[in-house]
């Protein structure tokens, strides 16, 4: 058996062991299965929040995007401290509210405040699904991309990689719930950071040290060293709105929200916020982003009048890290050690993907059972039954995500363009999760909004955000449809991200409707 296979098997074995240990320590009730008894300490909380936030986006998507666009995408690293600040400023209040109100999901808290509207609860749950499914798809795609490079000699390596990753992830969540998800996240977070640092070091050494690396970087094409990058996509408004809204969408998404509920106390999240800001941004700025730039040196892009395409040795931008380290590490440190280090990077990428997939699948289970099944389908269901249903949801959600990934991987599929890059999927997902921001801010800080304003704002925001995503144009057979033309004109007028279009609409509707209805007190609400 080869070393990479052994290391991967060992890693998967440890995950299953942690899943089993989580099961042994659990108390088999909802609070414990979904929130680990609201008793997570700062170390585990910090790591699970970090691991959930940093997914295959960090280890495959970001280097891939820097490889394609150049330095401009490195500036996206500045979104991470925003997320760090939100962990304390929003997270701590959410945690406290969750403890007082006994909430498990986002909808529990928001609907409690706005008066328990069925429509609002369903909409919030829909947002959770709209975020979680693409995010899980992104992680399974990463598993496929990884396998496609490592086992390129096999015909269906992509499919096999995605399937294995989904099965293992679904299994250990089902076994142990939040406790095992958090424990595995902690392990995966360590692996993730190790992988980032190791990748950065390997690149620097292979290019002859920092000075030689910088010399080579300075020779890159002008478009790689400036804004808006090689394809022209990352214009300042796009860069700014992505940097500002992506971290907020990533922090108020269902899985992170539940991590705030599960934190033991304020200091847990305070420490988590500072660790998150310093370590993760540092890894991004000093390890992950240079990898993408180094890749441009080692595997020059093909820049033509028709556009940008990767080097002939690179099938997909998202594969660049795996390809590069696969080539560099064995050369740098010799056969055996090189193989072990390469395997560690592979495991780190798997960890990045699985740690986010598990959190989102686990959150989906909670969303469905708490917000739909237990509330509308079977009100008399027991806690044990709801936990069981949640596990079934995890299986179904994994299967749906996997099916979409496998369909999208076929060249003839209409999803191919949408799924071309991991970063694209991540941005699609946060365009929806960020639509909960007006409500969240209102409940936690402002308290002037109304239930109808929340519903109207959320509907408006979701619809508009969707219209500006890459999935909208394929719905039209006629490219000259008036609505499509209007949206294209709007994109040209203000090249901001779909999340910003949606959020602007959402905020305006929320404020106007609240104003028209007049602010109401909690008692009246």
């Amino acid at each position, binding site marked *: 058996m080869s070393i990479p296979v052994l290391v991967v098997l060992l890693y998967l074995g440890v995950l299953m062991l942690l899943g089993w240990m989580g099961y042994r320590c659990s108390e088999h009730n909802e609070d414990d299965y979904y929130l680990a008894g609201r008793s997570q300490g700062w170390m585990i909380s910090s790591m699970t929040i970090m691991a959930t936030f940093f997914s295959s986006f960090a280890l495959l998507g970001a280097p891939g995007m820097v490889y394609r666009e150049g330095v401009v995408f490195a500036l996206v690293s500045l979104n991470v401290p925003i997320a760090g600040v939100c962990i*304390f400023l929003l997270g701590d209040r959410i945690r406290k509210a969750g403890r007082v109100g006994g909430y498990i999901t986002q909808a529990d808290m928001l609907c409690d405040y706005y008066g328990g509207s069925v429509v609002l609860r369903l909409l919030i749950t829909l947002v959770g699904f709209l975020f979680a499914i693409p995010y899980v798809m992104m992680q399974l795609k990463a598993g496929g991309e990884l396998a496609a490079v490592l086992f390129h000699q096999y015909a269906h390596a992509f499919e096999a990689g995605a399937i294995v990753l989904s099965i293992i992830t679904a299994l250990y969540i089902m076994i142990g719930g939040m406790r095992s998800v958090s424990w595995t996240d902690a392990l995966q977070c360590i692996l993730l950071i190790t992988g980032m640092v190791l990748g950065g070091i390997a690149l620097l050494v292979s290019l002859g040290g920092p000075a030689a690396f910088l010399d080579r970087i300075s020779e890159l094409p002008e478009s790689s060293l400036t804004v808006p990058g090689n394809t022209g996509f990352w214009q300042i408004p796009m860069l700014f709105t992505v940097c500002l809204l992506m971290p907020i969408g990533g922090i108020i998404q269902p899985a992170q929200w539940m991590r705030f509920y599960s934190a033991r106390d304020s200091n847990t999240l305070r420490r988590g916020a500072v660790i998150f800001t310093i370590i993760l941004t540092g890894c991004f700025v000093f390890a992950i982003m240079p990898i993408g730039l180094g890749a441009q040196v080692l595997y020059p892009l093909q820049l033509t009048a028709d556009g940008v395409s990767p080097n002939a040795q690179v099938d997909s931008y998202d594969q660049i890290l795996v390809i590069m380290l696969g080539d560099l590490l064995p050369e740098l440190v010799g056969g055996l050690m090189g193989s072990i280090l390469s395997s560690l990077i592979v495991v780190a990428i798997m960890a990045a993907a699985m740690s986010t997939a598990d959190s989102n699948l686990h959150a989906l289970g909670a969303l469905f059972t708490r917000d739909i099944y237990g509330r509308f389908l079977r009100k008399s269901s027991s806690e044990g039954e709801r936990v069981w249903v949640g596990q079934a949801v995890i299986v179904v959600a994994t299967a749906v995500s996997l099916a979409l990934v496998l369909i999208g991987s076929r060249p003839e599929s209409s999803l191919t363009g949408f799924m071309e890059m991991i970063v694209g999927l991540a941005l699609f997902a946060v365009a929806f999760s960020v639509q909960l921001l007006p409500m969240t801010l209102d409940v936690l800080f402002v308290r002037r909004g109304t239930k109808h304003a929340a519903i109207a704002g959320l509907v408006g925001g979701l619809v508009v955000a969707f219209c500006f995503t890459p999935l909208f144009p394929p719905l039209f057979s006629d490219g000259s449809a008036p609505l499509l033309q209007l949206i294209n004109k709007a994109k040209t007028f203000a090249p901001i991200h779909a999340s910003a279009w949606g959020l602007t609409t959402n905020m305006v509707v929320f404020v106007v409707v609240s104003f028209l209805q007049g602010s109401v007190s909690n008692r009246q609400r």
Partner: protein
Amino acid sequence: MSEPTVDATSTLVRPARKWLTIILAVVFVLSIILGAGPGVLLVNRPETIVGVPLVYAWGILWYIVQVIVVLIAYFTTWKQAAEDMECDRWGAPQTIYGDGEPA
């Protein structure tokens, strides 16, 4: 809720903390606008500084500023807020300071 208590220390410390919070917030917002917003246009040239591409170095500069802001907040305003703040069932602060205003 119990009657607010007048605490001499808190009435002195609170305005200072409020100002520090405002300053930190302003610096942080500026770092976002300058680091990843229109401020990038100030350095949008294919040049290097100490070998590092200028745009990249600009990003690193604002990352350092953001870390400093977060560290100061961690040791000052967040620490106090974490200790003081009790919330109701929707996350709004309940603790009343010496002057009777929420934290």
